[in-house]
C-alpha cells in the first residue's frame, strides 16, 4: 500500500506552506462555478480539500499500480505494428486506462468541458508523483497542454469537438512541432499547410521525434504562408490521426521507453486552423511550450525523488567496513546533497507554479472581468505585467534546474549503489536513462539559460529579489538573509558588467548568471519555508527513541537545510561572479585552435 503523495513529507509540507487560496480564488473566478457544477468548490478551503483528495488518489494509484509496472514498461517499450498502428507497453496501456477511469486526464481544463479546473501547482504535484512511479507515463499523462492550447486559442466548435474526450481520457494528443531540419530552431519548419478551392486546409510533409505521435489528436505547426520564411509564416493546425497520417518509424532510444517517439508523414491530411494564421509559433506554440516546460520540470523532480530514495535506502542497508556505508563521510555528503538538490528543485517548481497561476489568473481577470475603478485597473495591470515577467524568467529556470538536478541525482544514485547501481537489478540505471532526455526536450538546458538570463539581466530578477527579501522571515534565518543580500549585490553588479560587455558575452556567461540567481532564489525560498506559518513533525533517521524514529519540526529541519544550502553556495556565487568579471572571451577568439579540427575519416 504505497502512496506517493502521502509518503512524501516535503510535498505534504509545501502543499500547506504555499498560499493556494489566492490561486484557487482566481482560477475559480470567485467560486462562481459551484452553482452549475456539483463538484466545483464553493470556497477556497473546499478547493484546497479537493486538490488534496485528488492528489491522494493519484498518489495511491502511482504507488500501488503504476510503479510496480515500470520495470516491465522499460523492457517492453512500444511497438510499431505492420498495419502502421503503435502499441503501447502493456503497463502504459493499463495505467492510462486507470488514469482515465480516475478522470484526471483533464485536470487543468475548465469545468464546462468536464475538466477539474485545477491550478498549475496542483497539476505539477500530480505530474511529479506519476513521474516518480514511471517517468515515461508522464509524457502521456502530462501532455494535457495540448488540450489547454485548444482551450486557449481554438474556436468554440473545435473545443467542443475535442475537449470533452480529452477530459474523459478517451483520447490522447501530440504536439507535432519538430522536423528533421527544425529542432530547437522551430522557425525553420517546412511542413506545408495548404487550402483547396473551398478553403479547407490540408497538411503535407514530415515531422520527427514526435512524442506520442500515435495519439488520436495532433497539434501540428506548419507553414501556411509559403512565401514567408521564419516564424511569421507558421500557423497551428489540429487534425485527427486518420488514414493520411502515417507513423513511419518509432525511435529506438536511451530512456523513457514507455513513451513512443514517432516519425510522422502527413499525406494531404485534412485539418483545421487553430486561432489565426501566422500566429502558430508566437504566441500559440510558445504558450504551449511554457506549459510543457513546467511539465518537464515536474517530471525531472519525480525522477530525482525516485533516484534519491533508492540511494537513501541502500546507504543505510549496505554494510561495508563493518557498518552501513552511510557512516562514510563521502557517502553521507552525497546523500544529503542529493536530498537538498531535490528539495531545492521542488521549492523552485512550486514557486514558479504559484507565479504562473497568478499570472494566468490576472490576465484572465483583465480580459474578462476588469475592475471598473480606474485606480484598481491600473494596479491590476501593473501586477499582471510584473507576474508575467516573473513567470517568463522562472519557467525556464525551473525547467533547467529540475532537469539538470535529476541527471545529477540519478548519476549519484548509481554511485552510491556502486557496482549494484550499474546493474539492471536496481532501478537507478533506468532513472539515469530516463533523466537524460529532460535536459534536451522542450528546449535544451542551453536554451533555457538563454531565456532565463534575459530576466536576470533585465531588472526582472532585481525586482523579484527585492520582493523575496521583503517576505516574512523569522529571526533564526536573519544571518542567512544577510548573506543572500550580499550575494544579490555582487550578482547584480556582474549582470551590469555583462550588459555593458555585449549580448554575445551575456550568452557566454548565461549559465553562471542563471546558476547564481537560482542559488539566491532557492536560498530565499528555503528561508521562507523555515519561517512558514505552517509546521509539522517529521521523522528523522535517528532511532534512539526506543527504536521509534525521533521527530523533528519541519520548519526547524528546513532552517538547517537553508543554512547548509546558503553557506555552501555563497562561495560558489563569488567564484562564478569572479569568472564573469574576468571578461574572458577565449570561447569566441580561440575556438578554432582550442577545439581543433573537425575529425576526418581516414
Amino acid at each position, binding site marked *: 500500500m504505497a502512496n506517493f503523495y502521502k509518503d512524501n513529507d516535503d510535498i505534504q509540507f509545501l502543499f500547506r506552506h504555499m498560499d493556494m487560496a489566492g490561486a484557487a480564488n482566481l482560477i475559480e473566478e470567485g467560486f462562481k462555478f459551484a452553482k452549475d457544477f*456539483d463538484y466545483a468548490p464553493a470556497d477556497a478551503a473546499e478547493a484546497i480539500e479537493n486538490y488534496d483528495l*485528488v492528489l491522494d*488518489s493519484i498518489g495511491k494509484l502511482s504507488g500501488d*499500480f503504476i510503479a510496480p509496472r515500470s520495470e516491465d514498461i522499460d523492457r517492453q517499450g512500444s511497438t510499431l505494428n505492420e498495419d502502421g498502428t503503435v502499441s503501447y507497453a502493456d503497463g502504459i496501456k*493499463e495505467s492510462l486506462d486507470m488514469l482515465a477511469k480516475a*478522470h484526471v486526464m483533464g485536470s487543468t481544463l475548465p469545468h464546462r468541458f468536464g475538466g477539474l479546473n485545477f491550478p498549475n501547482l496542483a497539476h505539477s504535484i500530480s505530474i511529479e508523483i506519476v513521474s516518480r512511479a514511471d517517468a515515461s507515463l508522464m509524457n502521456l499523462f502530462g501532455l494535457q497542454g495540448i488540450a489547454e492550447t485548444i482551450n486557449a486559442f481554438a474556436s468554440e466548435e473545435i473545443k467542443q469537438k475535442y475537449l470533452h474526450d480529452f477530459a474523459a481520457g478517451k483520447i490522447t494528443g501530440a504536439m507535432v512541432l519538430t522536423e528533421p531540419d527544425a529542432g530547437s530552431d522551430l522557425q525553420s519548419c517546412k511542413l506545408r499547410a495548404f487550402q483547396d478551392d473551398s478553403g479547407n486546409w490540408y497538411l503535407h510533409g514530415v515531422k520527427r521525434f514526435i512524442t506520442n505521435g500515435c495519439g488520436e489528436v495532433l497539434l501540428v505547426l506548419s507553414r501556411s504562408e509559403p512565401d514567408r520564411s521564419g516564424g511569421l509564416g507558421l500557423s497551428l493546425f489540429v487534425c485527427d490521426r486518420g488514414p493520411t497520417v502515417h507513423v513511419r518509424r518509432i525511435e529506438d532510444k536511451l530512456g523513457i521507453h514507455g513513451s513512443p517517439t514517432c516519425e510522422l508523414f502527413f499525406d494531404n491530411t485534412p485539418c483545421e486552423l487553430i486561432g489565426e494564421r501566422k500566429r502558430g509559433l508566437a504566441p500559440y506554440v510558445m504558450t504551449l511550450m511554457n506549459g510543457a516546460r513546467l511539465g518537464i520540470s515536474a517530471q525531472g523532480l519525480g525522477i530525482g525523488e525516485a533516484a534519491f530514495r533508492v540511494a537513501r535506502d541502500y546507504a543505510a542497508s549496505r554494510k561495508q567496513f563493518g557498518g552501513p556505508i552511510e557512516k562514510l563521510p563521502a557517502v553521507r555528503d552525497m546523500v544529503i546533497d542529493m536530498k537538498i538538490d531535490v528539495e531545492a528543485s521542488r521549492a523552485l517548481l512550486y514557486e514558479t507554479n504559484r507565479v504562473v497561476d497568478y499570472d494566468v489568473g490576472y490576465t484572465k481577470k483583465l480580459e474578462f472581468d476588469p475592475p471598473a475603478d480606474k485606480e484598481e485597473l491600473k494596479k491590476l495591470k501593473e501586477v499582471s505585467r510584473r507576474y508575467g515577467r516573473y513567470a517568463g524568467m522562472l519557467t525556464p529556470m525551473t525547467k533547467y534546474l529540475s532537469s539538470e538536478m535529476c541527471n545529477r541525482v540519478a548519476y549519484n544514485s548509481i554511485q552510491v549503489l556502486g557496482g549494484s547501481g550499474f546493474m539492471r537489478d536496481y532501478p537507478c540505471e533506468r532513472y539515469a536513462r530516463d533523466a537524460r532526455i529532460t535536459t534536451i526536450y522542450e528546449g535544451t538546458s542551453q536554451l533555457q539559460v538563454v531565456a532565463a538570463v534575459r530576466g536576470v539581466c533585465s531588472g526582472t530578477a532585481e525586482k523579484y529579489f527585492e520582493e523575496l527579501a521583503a517576505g516574512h522571515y523569522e529571526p533564526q534565518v536573519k544571518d542567512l538573509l544577510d548573506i543572500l543580500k550580499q550575494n544579490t549585490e555582487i550578482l547584480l553588479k556582474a549582470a551590469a558588467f555583462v550588459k555593458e560587455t555585449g549580448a554575445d558575452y551575456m550568452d557566454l556567461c548565461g549559465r553562471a548568471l542563471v546558476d547564481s540567481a537560482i542559488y539566491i532564489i532557492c536560498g530565499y525560498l528555503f528561508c521562507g519555508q523555515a519561517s512558514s506559518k505552517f509546521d509539522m513533525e517529521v521523522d528523522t533517521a535517528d532511532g534512539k527513541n526506543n527504536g521509534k524514529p525521533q521527530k523533528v519540526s519541519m520548519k526547524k529541519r528546513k532552517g538547517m537545510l537553508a543554512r547548509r544550502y546558503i553557506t555552501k553556495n555563497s562561495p560558489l556565487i563569488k567564484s562564478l561572479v569572479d569568472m564573469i568579471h574576468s571578461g574572458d572571451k577565449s570561447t569566441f577568439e580561440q575556438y578554432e585552435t582550442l577545439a581543433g579540427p573537425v575529425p576526418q575519416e581516414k
Partner: protein
Amino acid sequence: MAYNCVVSIKQVPDTKRITGEAMNDDGTVNRGSLPAIFNPEDLNALELALDIKDKYGGKVTVITMGLPAASAILRESLYRGADEAILITDRRCAASDTLATSYILSCAVKKLDCDIVLCGRQAIDGDTAQVGPQLAEKLGISQITYVEELISLEKKTITARRNIGNGWQEVKCNLPVLLTVVDEANEPRVSVAKRLMKYKKARTPVEIQMQLKQDNPHASDEELKQLAKAKAEELQEKGLLIKQWDIDYLGADLQWCGRDGSPTKVHRIQSVILTARESKTVEPSEQCIADMVHELISDKTIS
C-alpha cells in the same frame, strides 16, 4: 440489457498492520488499534459490479451492515462509481455472527430491485467466507463462489469462471445470482476525481447527528433533532444523503438478529505457533521434487 447490482461490503480492521496491541487479552481483535479499511476483496466485488454497469448499464447499489464509522467505506464506494449507498446500522444488530448477518442483509437485498448480488470472497478479519453463500441461501437464489472472471452475461444467463484451488470451473446459471469474488478477478479502480470532489460531503443521518452533537455540546435533544433534520434535508436536496436503514425498516425478525440470532459461540481461542521440529533434505532431481510435492499434497500441507 441493463443489470442492477447490489454489492455487500464490510469495514474491517487492517490485519496487515498487526502490531503488539492487535489482540485483547481475551484473544479477540482489538479493533481500536488497527485502522479500519474497505475489506480488500469487497473492492474486487465492487469493481466487477462497476464493470458490469460500464458494459451493460444498470445501477450499482452498495450496502453494509456496521457501526456509523462504516459510512466511510460507503463514501469510498460512491467515489469509485456506486450510484447508491445504504448503511444498515442498529444496536440490535450487534454481536451478529455470519448467520444473523446474512439474514439481516437478505432482508435489505429483498427491498432492492436486483439481478446480481456481489460479495467479496471473505473478510480479512474473520476469514470465514460464509456470509456470501448464506446470503444466497436466505435469498433463495443461485450462487457462484470464488469468481475470478465474468465470462458473459446474456439476457438472463450468466457464465463465470470460478477458482477451485487446483484449477478452475466454468459455471452457467440463470439470474438472479449471487457471486463471491476473489482478488484475482480484477484490479479495483481508484476514486473518480469529480465524484471525490462531490461526494466528500455525503453523510449518513447518524453521522450528521454525531457531528452536530460535537459542534453543539449544549444543545438540547430537541434542538439537535431539528438541526439534524434540516441538515439531512439540505444534503438530500444535493443528493448527498446516504440512506440509513434499521431493523424496523427492514422488518427483520429480532430472534434471527444480533446475539439471539447467532448460534456461533467462541469456545476457546488458541495461539498457534508453528515451529520446525525436524528438517529433511530433498535432492534437486526431478523425481525427488515430484515426490516432495506428492507428499505435501497427501498430508494436505498444500492443496
